[in-house]
C-alpha cells in the first residue's frame, strides 16, 4: 500500500494530488493553515512551482494558494492517484 505512505506536501510534484492527514506546524502558522482549509481528509492538487523552484502553487477547496517549502514540509499528506 504505497498509496498510504505519509509524505510531506513539499514532496508532491506538479500535477500530483494528495489528501491532508496532519498539520505538524505549531503556533500561529498552524492556525493559519487550518483556517485556509488544511484539515484532515481534504483533497488538494499541486499546480506548479514558482520559476525559481519555491514557493509552490496548489489548489485546495477550489481556490489557488501558494506556500513556501518551509510551510509545505510541515503538512503530511497521502498521495492520491
Amino acid at each position, binding site marked *: 500500500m504505497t498509496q498510504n505512505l505519509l509524505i510531506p506536501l513539499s514532496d508532491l510534484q506538479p500535477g500530483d494530488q494528495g489528501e491532508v492527514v496532519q498539520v505538524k506546524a505549531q503556533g500561529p502558522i498552524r492556525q493559519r493553515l487550518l483556517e485556509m482549509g488544511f*484539515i484532515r481528509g481534504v483533497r488538494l492538487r499541486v499546480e506548479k512551482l514558482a520559476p525559481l523552484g519555491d514557493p509552490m502553487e496548489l489548489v485546495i477547496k477550489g481556490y489557488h494558494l501558494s506556500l513556501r517549502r518551509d510551510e509545505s514540509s510541515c503538512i503530511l499528506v497521502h498521495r492520491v492517484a
Partner: protein
Amino acid sequence: MSLTIALAGNPNCGKTTLFNALTGARHHVGNWPGVTVERRSGTFEQEGSTLEVVDLPGTYSLAARSEDERVAAKFLASPEVDLVLNVLDASNLERNLYLSTQLLELGKPVAFVLNMVDDAENRGVHIDLAALETLLGGPVIPTVGNREQGIPELKALLAAMARGETSRCRRITVDYGHDIEGELAKLETEIGRDEQLEASMPPRWLALQLLENNADAKRLVTESHASEAIGQQLTKSFAFLEPHLGADGATLIAERRYGFAHGLVKEVASAADDRRTPTSRLDAVLTNRWLGIPIFVGILALVYSLSFILGKIPQDWIAEGFKALSGFAEARLPAGELTSLLVDGVIPGVSAVIVFVPVIMILMGCIAFLEDTGYMARAAFIMDRLMHVMGLHGKSFIPLIMGSGCNVPAIQAARTIESPQDRLITILVTPLVSCSARLQVYIVIAGTFFTPFKAALAIIGMHFLGLGLAVLMGRMLRSALFHGPSSPFVMELPPYRLPVLRATAIHMWEKGSIFLTRAGTTIFAGATLIWFLSRYPGIANREWTAQYQDQRLAVQALKLPATETEDRLKALQLAHESHIVNTSLAARLGQKASPLLQPILDPDHKRPEAWKDVIALTAGFVAKEIVVSTMAVIHQASDEPKVGERLSPLQVALRDNSGLSPLTALAFMVFTLIYTPCLGTIAMIRREAGSWGWAGFTVAYGLVLGWGLAWVTVVAGRWMGFV
C-alpha cells in the same frame, strides 16, 4: 436614525469595490488606533436613515493572530457595531464561509452579500439563494460589485434593518458535535461567574477562542476574577477532548467549521465545471517557469517608466512653476528677511512637497491596478524565493525597486505587504536604495573627479551598493528585531479580475491627499527650519542688504548690454547669498561638526573648507538634490554649465578649490547615499511605520552606517594606493 455597519469578508472578495459602491465618494481614510492598518469609513443615506459603513481589513478569520485580524475582531466585538455585513465571494464560497461561521458566533445581526455572482455563473456554479438564506439565518443579497448590480437592493435592505426589521435574521450557530458542545457549555458556565467578562463578548465565542488556544482570549481571561476556575475547566476540557477525538482544540474546531461550510455549499450550490478557467490559462503564461520572470521584469519596467519618466513631466512643470513664482517674488519684493523667507523658505518648501504628488499618484495607481487585477500576488509568487533569501517577502520586491525612482512612494507601496514584520523591515531598508535625487549629486561629484567612464562605473556602483546594503540590513534587522522564523508565506492567488477604474482613481486620489496632509506638514516644517539655519543671522544684517542693493544699482547704472548686466547681477546675488550662508548658524554648526566627518572627508587634515560639505549635507536633509544647489551657493559658483563646456562652474570650483580628492569624493558619494533619508521619506516612514521612533531609528542607523562605509572607502582606498 443611524446605524453602524461593519463590512467584513475575506481578502479579494470585492469588499472595497462594494464599499465604494455603497458610500460613493463620501468616505474618510485613516488608521485604526495604534496600528498602521488602514481604516475606511463612509456614510450613505437611504429612506431617511443615515448609515455608516466601516470597511474592515480583509481577513480569513477572526483568530486575532495578525494585526488585521485583531483590528477586525476587536471592532466587531465592540458595541459600536450594530450590524455585520459579510461579503462572500460566490465563486469561492466554502472558504469564505469559514469567516461567516465566526461572525455568526458574535451574536450580532449578520446580513450577507453574495458578491461576484457573475464569476460563479461563468464557472457553472448556480447558488440557491433561498436555501442559503435559510441555512445562514440572515438575508442574502446577490451583487456584482464592480457593475453596481444589486446595490439598490442592498441599500434598501440595510435601511430596513436600520428601522429594526430583522425578521429575516435567525440565530444560527455551527454545531460542534456532542463532545465539544459539552465542553463549551461547561466553559460558558465558568465564564458566567464573571458578569463583566460575560458582558464583554458572547460567552460561547470566548469559550470557542479558549478551546482554540487563542492568546488574546487567554489574556482577557487572566484579568478576570474567575480566571482560575476558567483555567481549570480549560485544562480539563483539553484533557478530555484530545485523546477522545484525536486532535487538539484548534484542529477540531476548524474541522467542524469547515464541515458546516462544506455541507452548506453542497446544499445550495452546484459543482463547478472542471474546465480550465481564464485565470489558469493566464497563469500558464504569467507564472510560467520560463516566461514568468521576463514578463514580470517587463511589467516592472513599464510601471517604472510610467511613474518616473512620465511622472517627471508634471513634476518638472511644478518645479519650474514654483521656481518662476519665487523668481517673480524676488524680482518684485525688496531684499530682506521676509522676502528670503518667502523665496528661499516657503515657496521651495511647498514645492518640495507638491513635486512628489504626481509620482505618488501614478505609482500608487499602477500598484492598485496590479493588485486589483490579482497580478500582485503572482509577482510575489515569482520573486519570493529571491526575497526569502534576503529575509524578506516576495511583495517587498516592488517597493525596493521603485525606491530607485523615489523612496517616498516606495515606502507607501509597502502597504501591499500583509505581514507587519515584513512590512516594517521593507520600510526601514528602502531608504538605502539610491533614488533619482541622489543621482544628481553623484553626477556632479563623479563628473568632477572621474573620467566619464569611471564616473559611470562609480554611479552604477552606488546603486548596487544601495541595493546590497538594503538586503544586508534586511537580514540584520530581521534577526535583531524579530526572533524566531520569518512570518509564514501562505498567500492566496486570487482569480484575475478586471479592475474598476473608478476604484483605482479613488485610490490614487486618497494616496495623494494623505501624502499632502500627513507628510506635507512635516516636509514643510523641516524645509523652513533648514532655511532658518542657513540664512540667520546674515539675512537680518541690514548693512549687508544695503550694500548688496547699492552694488546692484551700480551695475544697473553701467548700462551694459542686457545679457552682461544679467550675468553680473547673478554673480552679485550668488556672492550675497554665499556671504549669508557661509556665516549662518548652519555654517557654525558645520565648523563645529566637521571634526566628526574629518576621517572620511578630510583624512589628511588638508582641507580648510571641509565644513562647507557639512552645510551641503545638512541641507540635503530636506531633499538630496538640494545638496547640489547648496554647494553652488556655498562655493559661489553656478551649477549650470556654460555653453560648450563639460564642467559647470561649480564643478570647476570643487575640483580646484574644495580640496576633495577622487578618493574623498567617492567617500562623499557613499556618505550621500546612506547618511539619511530625505524629509519626505522620513515623514513617510513615520506615517507608515506608525511612530517617530522608527523614523528616528532610520536616520540614526543611516548616519552610523554611512559614516562607517565612507570611512572604509577611504581606508581601503588608501591601502590600495589611491588618493
